[in-house]
């Protein structure tokens, strides 16, 4: 097990190298000059030249990449072109927001999705099943932007239950977590339903029932635990998706997260910020995948990593 985890962790290095090369190439393929965007239309050529020089943008691209990689290896992610702050500082300020949001969202969608999926599976073809299916269809299809504005309209403007944006308290995170969790919970609900239906047909479930085990215990202990493997996979994927996809939620609800940092970084051609953020998001993604794999073994002791 330990050898397996170590091996997986070591694999992060090539993944990050790939991500670095990919994001560097893509960013520089997009036309636009960070100095021009930063300094505005009124800037003189002298100011532009100064900004380019300060950030090494006047060097050939290959050289810029080598410098970036060398610094990154030493743990230096560079200086933001826009704010002139170290990228590491910006990430340290912004990443916890996104992590908290993604975590809350997956919590919301986990609880909602699994419960809805189980109920739908156990009452197959009933009215409740139909409703759950319909709700998950809506959840998957509704654009985050629209849902966010609608939630603000209902819960902030009309009911005044939650603030319409910004950060600071837990109350600020309720609506964003619901919005971000909406589509994940739909996906998880559908996966849970399918997986549960599969398991509930198995012989051992019938045996358990024949023995007279309580229905609730059959469903939650015997069936659900075995149905969890595919659900976990979706969990891991959705969490990763939430990290990257949080940008829309962060924009609608004005949360200072890393998703917005990346998108604003792209618009400003703030190369160090985008590259640094990509590294952090990629690392988190890999770690979450690893945790998912480890969790498989816990749910299904037949799975061993040797």
């Amino acid at each position, binding site marked *: 097990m330990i050898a397996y985890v170590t091996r997986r962790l070591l694999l992060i290095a090539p993944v990050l190298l790939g991500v670095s090369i990919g994001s560097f190439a893509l960013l520089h393929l997009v036309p636009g*000059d960070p100095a021009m*965007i*930063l300094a505005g239309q009124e800037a003189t*050529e*002298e100011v532009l030249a100064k900004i380019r020089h300060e950030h090494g943008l006047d060097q050939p691209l290959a050289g810029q990449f080598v410098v970036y990689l060398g610094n990154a290896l030493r743990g230096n992610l560079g200086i933001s072109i826009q704010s002139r702050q170290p990228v590491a500082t910006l990430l340290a300020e912004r990443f916890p927001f996104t992590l908290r949001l993604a975590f809350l969202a997956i919590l919301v969608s986990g609880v909602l999705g699994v419960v809805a999926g189980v109920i739908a599976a156990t009452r197959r073809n009933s009215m409740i099943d139909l409703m759950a299916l319909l709700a998950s269809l809506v959840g998957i299809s509704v654009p985050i932007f629209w849902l966010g504005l609608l939630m603000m309209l209902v819960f*902030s403007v009309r009911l005044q239950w939650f603030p319409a*944006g910004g950060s600071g308290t837990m109350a600020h995170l309720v609506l964003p977590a619901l919005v971000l969790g909406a589509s994940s919970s739909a996906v998880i609900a559908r996966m849970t339903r399918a997986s549960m239906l599969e398991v509930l047909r198995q012989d051992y479930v019938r045996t358990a029932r024949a023995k007279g085990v309580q229905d609730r215990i059959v469903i939650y202990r015997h069936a659900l635990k075995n149905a969890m493997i595919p659900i976990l996979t979706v969990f891991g994927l959705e969490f990763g998706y939430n990290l990257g996809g949080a940008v829309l939620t962060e*924009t609608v609800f*004005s949360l200072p997260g890393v998703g917005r940092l990346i998108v604003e970084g792209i*618009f400003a051609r703030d190369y160090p910020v985008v590259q640094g953020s990509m590294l952090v998001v990629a690392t988190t993604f890999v770690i979450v995948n690893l945790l998912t794999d480890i969790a498989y073994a816990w749910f299904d002791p037949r799975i061993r990593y040797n």
Partner: protein
Amino acid sequence: MRRIASLSIMVTLLGLAALPMAGPTPAQTPVRGGTVTFATGADPDSLDPQNTQSNPGEQVNRMMYENLVRFSAKMQLEPALAESWSSSKDGLTWTFKLRKGVKFHDGTPFDAKAVKYFFDRVLGEEKPFKASLYTPVVQAADVIDASTVRVVLKQPFGAFLFIMAHSAGAIVSPSAHQKWGKDLALHPVGTGPFKFVEWVKGDRVTVQRNDDYWGGRPNLDRVVVKTVREDQSRVLMLESGDADLIVNIPTEEIARLKKDPRFTVESSPTARALFIAINVKKKPFDDVRVRQALNYAVNRDAIVKDLFQNNARVIPAHVSPLQNGYAQLSGYSYDPKKAKELLAQSGASSLKVKLWSPKGRFAKDYELAQAVQQDLAAVGVEASLSTLEWGAYLAATKAPAEQTDRELFLLGWSPSTGEARWGTFPLLHSSQLAPKGDNRGFFVSKTLDEAIEKATVATTDQSRLGALREAQQIAITEAPYIFLISPNMIVGTSKKVHGVMNLPLELTYLTEKSSKDK
């Protein structure tokens, strides 16, 4: 020679300040205390005024810092940290009498040394971004006595007071600059009515009242400036009470908010000019008749009325009426018949052109380009409209002549000095051809160059304004652009909030006189 802002103006101003809440708003005593939450579209880039290059940064700075002279809401120059000033006859030496007894937020006294420190910084080795406003103009500054500063210019400069009123002319505490260096951007210290509290990046900047403010204790306790990127989210925040003040209200929302008795929507004119630049190096745009025809083809009144719902005004040239030096000239009327005639004369009666526009950078920019596209179609000019994201758009419209095939492209220009010389020189002087400057249509005219140069070195307002008028007249005749409109800035506030400053430079902020009802 000139003794602007002499003692008499001062006395009047102080008198006004002493009156409780003078002005059109309710004549009751303003409420003391309270926090105003202000939702704006982007995070500041920096809070060091000499390095700040964006409106979100400038408007926060304007609450914490002050200049020697400042703009009134109508863009008139007023005394601020300088009580009065005078200039020598040759326009080369300016003497500022400073306000006494003023202190920076960190306790450092504001005096002639602090002003000299400002000039030494912008002219010296550090070269902050905004130094380029001052280095071509100012030679040096000297301390005459504790409250008198003399500034010597390299050449007479008609708009000198305007560059001093620019957001980058804010005087920073010298001790704070020495202490923080580059990190001054995060630790602003000025003399203004509000003191810095915190900046949570991407989220908010908080300032609190400065009890020692020379203009009297501010009414508000705090101002929280929140970054809310989404236009629609800002509107919802105003409606839910999470914000008291919001900027850039989408035009479609104005009518709805206006009907709501809880809010005030103020639509006020700005110094910004929107126009469509023409690449005069490309045929047939080298022919002035074609450029004039394009100008005759556009129905500006209809654009203002239908597209902007009167939240804009027609401008005759490239200068907005809120720029000092704007000349009231008659521009192009809507005359499609004349447009067709001119096109026929120049042999371009059926013309295919490329039209570029940003989307979402300026108020209704893309829709404006669409309206022009339709008007052009009516005179036989077929324009294919395309858009680019702003970063790419800047690069594409600033590329040098030999690397571009751009033809018509929409641009907006708001001279941050608030005067028409800066609204003309970077755009149309022959020394400013892209990519060096912002003459992105490569327009060259000797007579226009001369008029701009005359305005630059003018030593009297009369000669400066005369030269600027001449420049605008030449621009109209030569038609380097399709001149369009000047959009309004649209700000929404809770009815509880009074005394919001909407400076036509598209800067919204609160002052010591702003207040909020309980």
